[in-house]
């Protein structure tokens, strides 16, 4: 029963946060962007905070590695969205480089966690 109550509370909290993101006034930092892109950036920030929660709470090291992998992917999306309203095209370069180094880092980390050598 208490499990049901906590489930409903979590659902309500998530819906409240999404509603706040969709309805709140746009912060002055993003004022130059179009409203759609500003809200998209705020949505990606919310997802990043959920990943940070998993990095804080994760019981094992692999949970944290998974969350870091996902955070890198989210940052690639963030950079590509950010290149639209600002007009600075080099943000997508940051995304490409971030994807590359995230892949290499995660591969090395998983080899290390599995107790293998790097050339295996």
């Amino acid at each position, binding site marked *: 029963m208490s499990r049901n109550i906590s489930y409903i509370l979590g659902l309500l909290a998530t819906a409240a946060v999404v509603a706040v993101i969709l309805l709140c006034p746009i912060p002055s930092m993003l004022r130059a962007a179009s409203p759609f892109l500003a809200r998209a950036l705020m949505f990606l920030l919310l*997802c990043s905070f959920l*990943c940070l929660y998993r990095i804080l709470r994760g019981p*094992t090291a692999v*949970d944290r590695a998974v969350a870091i992998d996902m955070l890198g992917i989210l940052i690639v999306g963030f950079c590509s969205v950010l290149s639209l309203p600002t007009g600075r095209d080099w943000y997508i370069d940051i995304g490409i480089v971030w994807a590359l180094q995230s892949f290499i880092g*995660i591969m090395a980390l998983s*080899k290390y966690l599995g107790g293998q050598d790097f050339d295996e």
Partner: protein
Amino acid sequence: MNEHIGMALIVVGLAFDFFGCVGLIRFPDVYGRLQAAAKCVTLGTCGILLGLFLFKGFTPTGIKALLCLLFIILTAPVSAHSLARGAYRSGVKPWSGTVKDEYTEKMGE
């Protein structure tokens, strides 16, 4: 017209990113979380990058977005797979409700 399709793709990508993050919070063990994370890559960020390509067209930025999409779609399953393997080898147990564990049976042969 292209911009509207791009906007729709970006919305789909944002929704999948959000659902993947909720799955990262809610699933009970490492392997379920890995599954949610892989979904988030394939439809989430790739949708956003495809939307960016539709916004920009065949300019250098659009081509870079396509290249980034190709790279991500090639590498994300590889990294997820090797993370699952590393997790299994480092001794992380699957969830107690798991029905079948084929990897242990294969390794036992």
